[in-house]
């Protein structure tokens, strides 16, 4: 499953058990609906592990934070899954905001490159 836009890409690879978000998420609430549907679809497969890679996500607005929090809540409610998030110190928002996901799902691991 993949959403490709000139400003961003969201990709779910079920074999690799990996979601990759790249580019710039500077969208309106309604524009995030398609992204959230993809994320929910990935969450509802209930894989044993899931890697979410934000390393090349340059910018995320508060509506984007809301979308990703909804996804993490869905993962939390689905239980079982072990979630690993990877990010980069290159993008200031990741250092500041990725920790919010761990508050929702304390077992989530965050790794910075």
């Amino acid at each position, binding site marked *: 499953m993949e959403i490709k836009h000139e400003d961003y890409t969201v990709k779910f690879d079920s074999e690799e058990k990996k979601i990759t978000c790249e580019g710039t998420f500077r969208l309106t*609430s309604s524009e995030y609906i398609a992204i959230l549907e993809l994320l929910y679809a990935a969450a509802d497969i209930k894989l044993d592990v899931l890697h979410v890679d934000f390393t090349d996500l340059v910018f995320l607005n508060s509506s984007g934070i809301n979308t990703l*929090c*909804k996804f993490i809540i869905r993962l939390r409610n689905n239980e079982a899954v072990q979630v690993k998030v990877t990010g980069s110190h290159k993008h*200031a*928002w990741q250092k500041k*905001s990725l920790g*919010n996901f761990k508050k929702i799902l304390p077992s989530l691991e965050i790794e910075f490159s």
Partner: protein
Amino acid sequence: MQKTIGKFIERDTNKDHEFLIINFSPTTLPLDKKWRNNGLTAVFFAEYLSAFFPGEDEASKRRRSEVKGAVDYIANELLENAMKFSFLAHEAAVQLCVVLKPKMVTFYMTNCVEAASVEAWCKKLNLLIMEDTEALFMQQIEDNCEKNSGSSLGYLTMINDWNVSLAWKFEPFEGNEKAQQVTVMAHLPI
């Protein structure tokens, strides 16, 4: 009558030497184009101000990247809010002023809102000043799972994630009792 929430500090135009102001009408472009312009404006402010943090060693680069990321995020959120909630958009311009000081960047976002909505809005803003904003964030994201409207996370993330102090000033809008002018002040320590 003027009303403030939080510790609102007026701009000192005699002492503020380094600042940028952008002033425009929110009706000039359709919403999707305006949204794109918010991004362009925020990136411009961020790129411009980051140039005041030179140096090629790792610590300087990190500081420059942090200032740039913070200014981009905060300017973008303030502009998005102003676009979403502007009232009398055909009469009232939207203005963003960003002032650079040695240890602080201060944003002043001014736009016009519907007077009838101000009281309910002020109640929510008072919560941001009085309550535990970490707990408010967790409550808000759980509530948001039930709906597809706005996130109401802009101010909360500025406070919690970027250590921003916020304050608001409401004033009458000259010539129209149905409107009020609001200025949001956001202090970002750097």
